[in-house]
């Protein structure tokens, strides 16, 4: 199996990617009408946590540069770089997206590079810029198992037919490697479809699979929240994931449901079924105000060696005011508790309240 993987990586996929890069750059050199646009996004955070210990933080959130360029009618480029505070006056620079897109026929494209794995609506539509988030935080599933980035090759189609059908088929790096240097050590496969029966609505379904040699090596989990702990299991693990999204962002009502189910398989403890669901409901009034509520739940099996046993529920109540399409402020109250109070899951974190304010902007 490993030999087949190596042959696939070294003899087929890598040459294809290099050829694609060469074609893109040779084409761009001959182009006279290249255009590029630069945007910046960022946010400021205030949070108060009321748990066993109580504290408040005012912090500089993620800041990012976003570049969108067109080489010619067929080739375009998208880059996204973030800057995160990493403690003691230091900042960490990350390449979040860097991709070259070749629009080969009408609404069909081939993309190579590093991109957000199109497993659900949130990861495909928002991921880094808080300006677009409906709530202050991402759903809980993002801190546990959603493979945020993938480096590889992607076939994409969008707005096909009457129902605006779209597809993404992606072959790339697995969860252990989301960057250029160790690409395709443990490949992943993503197949996703979506359709938009009306402009404001989108339904989506996806399947993701990867096979890991070392489950403790989790590059794609770099966005873990404060509850996230390192994986101690360093053996092989198979990971299958199904996601379903329903999104509606209309003039008055906003609705988003993200469902995620995954099954992990190890020789050590067998198969484990894990599930999470995030639901958001917002009501827009006076064009720029949104009152919203949400509920997030995540539960993993006792024998899971990828996320480890974990259960959590989160209730959200918040308000957003948009000063303009490029500046908004959100205030949010959150209550966390465990699914089980009887400590049958031996990882109970206990209840906590959080109050947060976030100002996010785009330039």
């Amino acid at each position: 199996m490993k030999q087949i993987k190596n042959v696939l990586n070294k003899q087929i996929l890598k040459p294809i990617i290099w050829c694609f890069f060469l074609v893109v750059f040779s084409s761009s050199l001959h182009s006279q009408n290249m255009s590029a646009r630069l945007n910046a996004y960022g946010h400021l955070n205030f949070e108060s946590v009321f748990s066993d210990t109580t504290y408040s933080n005012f912090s500089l959130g993620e800041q990012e540069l976003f570049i969108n360029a067109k080489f010619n009618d067929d080739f375009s480029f998208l880059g996204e770089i973030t800057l995160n505070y990493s403690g003691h006056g230091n900042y960490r620079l990350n390449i979040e997206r860097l991709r070259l897109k070749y629009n080969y026929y009408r609404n069909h494209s081939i993309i190579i590079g590093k991109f957000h794995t199109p497993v659900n609506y949130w990861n495909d539509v928002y991921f880094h810029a808080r300006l677009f988030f409906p709530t202050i935080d991402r759903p809980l599933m993002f801190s546990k198992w959603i493979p945020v980035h993938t480096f590889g090759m992607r076939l994409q189609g969008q707005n096909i037919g009457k129902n605006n059908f779209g597809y993404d088929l992606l072959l790339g790096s697995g969860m252990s490697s989301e960057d250029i240097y160790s690409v395709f050590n443990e490949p992943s496969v993503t197949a996703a479809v979506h359709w938009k029966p009306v402009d404001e609505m989108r339904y989506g379904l996806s399947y993701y699979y990867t096979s890991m040699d070392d489950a403790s090596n989790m590059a794609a989990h770099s966005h873990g929240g404060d509850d996230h702990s390192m994986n101690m299991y360093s053996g092989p693990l198979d990971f299958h994931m199904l996601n379903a999204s329903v999104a509606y962002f209309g003039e008055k009502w906003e609705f988003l449901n993200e469902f995620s189910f995954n099954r992990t398989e190890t020789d050590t403890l067998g198969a484990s079924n894990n599930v999470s669901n995030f639901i958001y409901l917002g009501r827009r009034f006076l064009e720029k105000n949104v009152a919203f509520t949400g509920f997030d739940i995540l539960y993993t099996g006792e024998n899971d060696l990828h996320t480890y046993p974990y259960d959590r529920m989160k209730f959200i109540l918040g308000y957003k005011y948009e000063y303009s399409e490029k500046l908004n402020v959100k205030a949010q109250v959150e209550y966390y508790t465990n699914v089980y109070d009887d400590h049958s899951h031996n990882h109970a974190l206990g209840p906590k309240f959080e109050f947060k304010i976030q100002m996010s902007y785009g330039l």
Partner: protein
Amino acid sequence: MVYRLRYTLIILLFLVNGYNLSGQINLDDFSIALIGNNTGVEQISESTMKAYFKGKYNKWPNNKTVIVVLSSSKHPKVELYSDLLYNKSFYAVKKYWYSLVFQGRNNPPYFFSSDQEIIEFVRLNPGAIAIVEKSSKIPENLKIQINE
């Protein structure tokens, strides 16, 4: 009972038709013209035209990239144009495009503050599409006819 049912059906029919009629906004009623440069299209239906403005198609039938040209906040007809094309306010249109561009799905549109600027940009850029007032000085080769 039969009469009541008949009246109810007539009222429902009226409401449905009335709703549909109010939902259809004809560009011609507002003396608005559609212009495009080297799109390979001489006639287009209103629904297809709106789909192009919403970024649903990346390319024209002649394989030219679609370049969406819109009125900016300083354009005197900005709210009318936004309503005609998107059935949204200009604020909502900006949000719509801002999100699409961030997703990497579309190239950003170009915004201009007068019809003359829009016409000039369309004239110089193959694949560009826009709407302007019919009373503007529009070169004949840029005009695209809208079918009902």
